[in-house]
């Protein structure tokens, strides 16, 4: 009796609700997602319904009457049965969905809340779409002349030729899946990849691929920005009140302050009152950018500005200040020229941001390569370069610290750092030397032994001179690049030119390290010059050490031994210390005294 009731009441109900859940999820689920995604959702839904039903029936049954063995057995059996049925249903609906997809090859483009469909046309196994329809949605102008079609968009234009699978954009070609097809006059067809490859170049809206043949063109709503001006005795307040909540960017230039509203097309509305001309000469709107920007032109008594926001309604405010009252700050009486950084008062920097002089003395920066998601080389046994480098770097630091130097690590944990971060640690501490620790990897398992690398500047200076001739522009650029060679020590050095002055010393350090490491391995490897991103900005003797190859079985075994790691760290540390002692006498300090 019990088994009968069980099979007759619970199982069908569970099955029914499972199928219901599946179907509702399939039908109501977002059409913009892929069928696979919908299916996953449906399956989850159905199975969770099933679980709930099964549990509920079991609970209610055991509460109502004592249970028999056959009842329990049957409930499990029915559970399994339903499960199988469910997977059959899922699989069949999945295959029908997956196979049904290619039949409708319409393109679907969403612009804001509106949905457009573009019909497909078949030709020689390719699916084409009429450019006319795409142009109408996106807002392109088409102009046909001979066998050439020019497509003009808001940001630029490109050209198509009948029968070639190419889009010409400025001086570049973009390759399409299939040749462009001219059906008849003024009726051109292209393949789907035209949308992703070519269209974004000329449209000033974002085209997003949702799934399959579904795209969304991000509609740019208008942002009405009302500008108001209020004059005070020592400053002018410029208020921007916008109808859309949009991120804003404020940048200062020589002659003006630029206020840029993002995300929406700006529709400006100007003030009736005039600003105090001493501080702000005018407020202008520049519509040539994608969204449009405001420019607050500085008056001749301009001193600095402050930007903040007020809420309810949200307003962005730029206060433009004149010079402070006489006596409060003598430096301000002299006219200020060039770029200014007004929010940073020079005096406030002193004492707070500058670390003590001691922090900068005798620093050796050690950069353990890779880290975090960036594993570096992975050995056949699954050893990771990032862990090895951190271990070795820690040991080098300990040895250097024992000899009166401060070892600075760019990372002490398993984190990923940007290359610029790695270099800037070295430059910030005015390091005496910079060591980037790595372990090598090669396609050839035979490659083994240590290699010390130094930075090499690619022959930029030579190419500029020989290739383009020495015209004014290139020689000016050359001068800028070589700014650091000028006698004037105060000149700013471009970031990636930092190493140029130290190449010879780096080479000296590298030779020393290479010799010592060669002895440790008993090999005869040479120092190699390579353009290296991490070393280029370093304003100190800098090398990158690849301590053996993790792809070489013998090296890998050695590097795994803690005893060998210690010897390796000891060798590197003693070579660096020896280098510091010899150069410290002859060359003085590389670091603090120059600044």
């Amino acid at each position: 009796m019990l088994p009968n009731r069980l099979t007759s009441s619970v199982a069908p109900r569970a099955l029914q609700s499972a199928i219901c859940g599946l179907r509702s999820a399939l039908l109501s689920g977002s059409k913009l997602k892929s069928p696979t995604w919908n299916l996953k959702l449906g399956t989850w839904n159905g199975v969770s319904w099933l679980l709930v039903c099964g549990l509920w029936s079991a609970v209610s049954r055991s509460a109502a009457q004592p249970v028999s063995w056959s009842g329990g057995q049957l409930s499990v059996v029915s559970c399994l049965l339903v499960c199988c049925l469910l997977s059959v249903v899922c699989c069949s609906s999945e295959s029908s969905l997956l196979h049904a997809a290619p039949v409708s090859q319409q393109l679907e483009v969403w612009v804001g809340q509106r949905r457009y469909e573009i019909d497909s046309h078949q030709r020689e196994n390719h699916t084409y779409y009429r450019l006319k329809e795409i142009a109408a949605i996106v807002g392109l102008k088409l102009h046909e002349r001979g066998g050439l079609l020019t497509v003009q968009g808001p940001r630029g234009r490109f050209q198509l030729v009948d029968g070639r699978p190419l889009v010409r954009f400025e001086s570049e070609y973009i390759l399409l899946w299939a040749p462009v097809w001219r059906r008849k006059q003024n009726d051109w067809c292209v393949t789907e990849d035209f949308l992703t490859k070519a269209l974004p170049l000329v449209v000033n809206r974002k085209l997003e691929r949702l799934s399959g043949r579904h795209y969304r063109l991000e509609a740019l709503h208008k942002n009405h920005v009302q500008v108001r001006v209020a004059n005070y005795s020592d400053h002018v307040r410029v208020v921007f009140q916008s109808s859309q909540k949009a991120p804003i960017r404020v940048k200062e230039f020589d002659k003006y302050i630029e206020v840029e509203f993002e995300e929406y097309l700006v529709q400006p509305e100007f003030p009736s009152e005039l600003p105090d001309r001493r501080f702000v000469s005018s407020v202008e709107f520049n519509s040539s950018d994608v969204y449009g920007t405001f420019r607050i032109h500085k008056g001749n008594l301009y001193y600095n500005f402050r930007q903040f926001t007020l809420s309810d309604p949200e307003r962005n405010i730029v206060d433009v200040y004149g010079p402070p009252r006489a006596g409060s700050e003598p430096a301000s009486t002299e006219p200020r020229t060039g770029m200014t950084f007004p929010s940073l008062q020079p005096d406030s920097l002193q004492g707070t941001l500058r670390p003590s002089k001691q922090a900068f003395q005798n620093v050796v920066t050690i950069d353990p390569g890779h880290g975090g998601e960036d594993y570096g080389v992975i050995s056949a046994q699954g050893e990771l370069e990032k862990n090895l480098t951190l271990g070795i770097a820690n040991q080098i630091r300990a040895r250097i610290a024992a000899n009166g130097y401060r070892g600075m690590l760019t990372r002490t944990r398993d984190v990923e750092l940007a290359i610029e971060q790695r270099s800037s640690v070295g430059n910030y501490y005015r390091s005496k030397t910079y060591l980037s620790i790595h372990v090598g990897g090669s396609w050839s398992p035979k490659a083994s032994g240590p290699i010390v690398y130094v930075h090499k500047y690619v022959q930029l200076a030579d190419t500029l001179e020989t290739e383009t001739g020495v015209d004014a522009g290139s020689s000016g650029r050359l001068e800028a690049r070589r700014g650091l060679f000028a006698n004037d020590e105060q000149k700013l050095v471009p970031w990636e030119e930092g190493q140029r002055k130290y190449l010879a010393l780096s080479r000296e350090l590298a030779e020393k390290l290479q010799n010592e490491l060669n002895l440790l391995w008993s090999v005869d490897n040479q120092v190699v010059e390579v353009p290296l991103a991490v070393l280029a900005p370093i304003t100190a003797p800098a090398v990158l050490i690849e301590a053996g190859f993790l792809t070489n079985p013998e090296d890998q075994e050695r590097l795994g031994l803690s005893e060998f790691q210690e010897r390796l760290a000891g060798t590197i540390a003693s070579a660096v210390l020896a280098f510091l002692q010899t150069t410290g006498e002859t060359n003085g300090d590389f670091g603090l005294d120059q600044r």
Partner: protein
Amino acid sequence: MKENRTILIGLGLVFLVVILVYYLYHLERRHQQALREAERQALDLEASALESRSSGELEVVLYFYKPGAIVPTPDLLVPEKRSIFQTEDAILTARQIIHETIKGPNEDGLPIFSEQAKLRQVYLLEDGTAVVDFSREATHQLGGVTAELSALYSITRSLTENIQEIKRVKFLMEGQERPSFAGHVSIREPFM
């Protein structure tokens, strides 16, 4: 009795979950397969589009990794001849050369890129600089300076030696200028 029953129900639930997990895994794998297939088709289409318009075959020299090479210099590469479709368009030729290099060597060289490596675009600037834009997958398995450098040297050599218009090669990653290709070598300046 009662214990037996709860155990059985528990087993049933576990079985259910296992089936579900397997099913979702299967779906995901299919999805990935479909993506890969679509990519392969796109490449085939490019090849067939080329085939229909090419005026013959062109023999080019590709460069692969030299077995046993240790020190990373341009000599660590071995040449290998391969024929591609002849076109009058330098960019199409360059694309073919890079695709062939990614496919790997047929002779005794070692591969330069992993199989997942993908080329995004090639542009040619007027001053003879080819701008080669790789996807992030191109740096997979390029651990170490040697492997990274060999990839850059290989592409640079094969493009500059096979295509007259190309004098130097500038590398991009995902359409962007990056300080480094795979973490070591600087790609700020073009290679030549």
